[in-house]
């Protein structure tokens, strides 16, 4: 089954890096948003399974985006992808409902491990 993925980052390069870091054998339908507001609008218009969310963005940043997702109970799994590696940032996003934190620059192997850990991607080596 195809997983619907939304990548939200204000940087075009970061969006591309993120998309390229997704496992090659993962059947996905990838969409992009440039800021939190765009992401929220897209999530409301069509449902997504997974959101890769940057924190530092104009218009609506990652923290505010997480708050809206939680307040409005939008059904989506959020993985925060950020260069802000302060322990406090990681704690805050988890409190706001993000399932995990992935540090930039993104690493394909780490993304894969996280996806397997949360059962989003099935580990074919163990089947």
């Amino acid at each position, binding site marked *: 089954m195809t997983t619907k993925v939304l990548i939200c980052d204000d940087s075009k390069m970061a969006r591309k890096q993120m998309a390229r870091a997704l496992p090659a054998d993962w059947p996905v339908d990838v969409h992009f948003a440039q800021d939190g507001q765009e992401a929220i609008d897209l999530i409301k218009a069509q449902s997504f399974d997974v959101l890769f969310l940057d924190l*530092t963005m104009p218009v609506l940043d990652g923290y505010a985006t997480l708050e809206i997702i939680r307040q409005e109970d939008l059904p989506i799994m959020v993985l925060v992808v950020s260069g802000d590696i302060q322990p406090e940032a990681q704690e805050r996003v988890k409190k706001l409902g993000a399932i995990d934190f992935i540090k*930039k*620059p993104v690493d394909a192997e780490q993304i894969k491990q996280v996806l397997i850990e949360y059962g989003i991607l099935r580990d074919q080596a163990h089947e």
Partner: protein
Amino acid sequence: MSDLIQLSEDERDCYQEITNVAMGQAADRLARLLGVYVVLPIPNVNLIEINEFKMTLKSLEGNSTVSAVCQGFIGAGIAGEALLIFNDASFAEIAKLLDYPGNLDQHEELEMLMDVANVLNGACIQGIGEQLDIDFSQSHPVILGQHCSIADLLEPNQSRWQRTMAIEINYTIEDHNINCDLLLLFTEDSVVHMNRLISFLMDD
């Protein structure tokens, strides 16, 4: 020379993203040193002329006095200066966080300024270097001025260059009155080299 270097939207975006990652690493170091949460801004990346640069600096600091440290870095045909500018009002707060007792004398302030500059400049420069696969060597930090105005700071340096790439990061610390600006300035020739290096990062 000034018509040679240019920055496309994609290149600017790339520098911004590289800076974003590097400043996150620097903020993490500062957060651990001071036991605080550092608020990360969106960095500004611009090609600027010296006159615009002065205006930028003045608008950053308003009328307050500042203290500044600069530190050169060089590697793989790329050279620049990291300029850290502290609002003087920040010192008392940093001293509190670092457990300095009582009022600070000038030497203690200097020491503190150097400590913070080492952490922020160093981590940021190395962070950018890592992503571009460059091992930057850094010079010893140099105090440009203590408790002076931005104009005083710039006066002796004004004729060395005309146009440069400037990356500007404004760090603030949550719940504390601490504010500093880190400016990374690259020479014109460096920008030509760096544009070539980042083209590999931007490739599909």
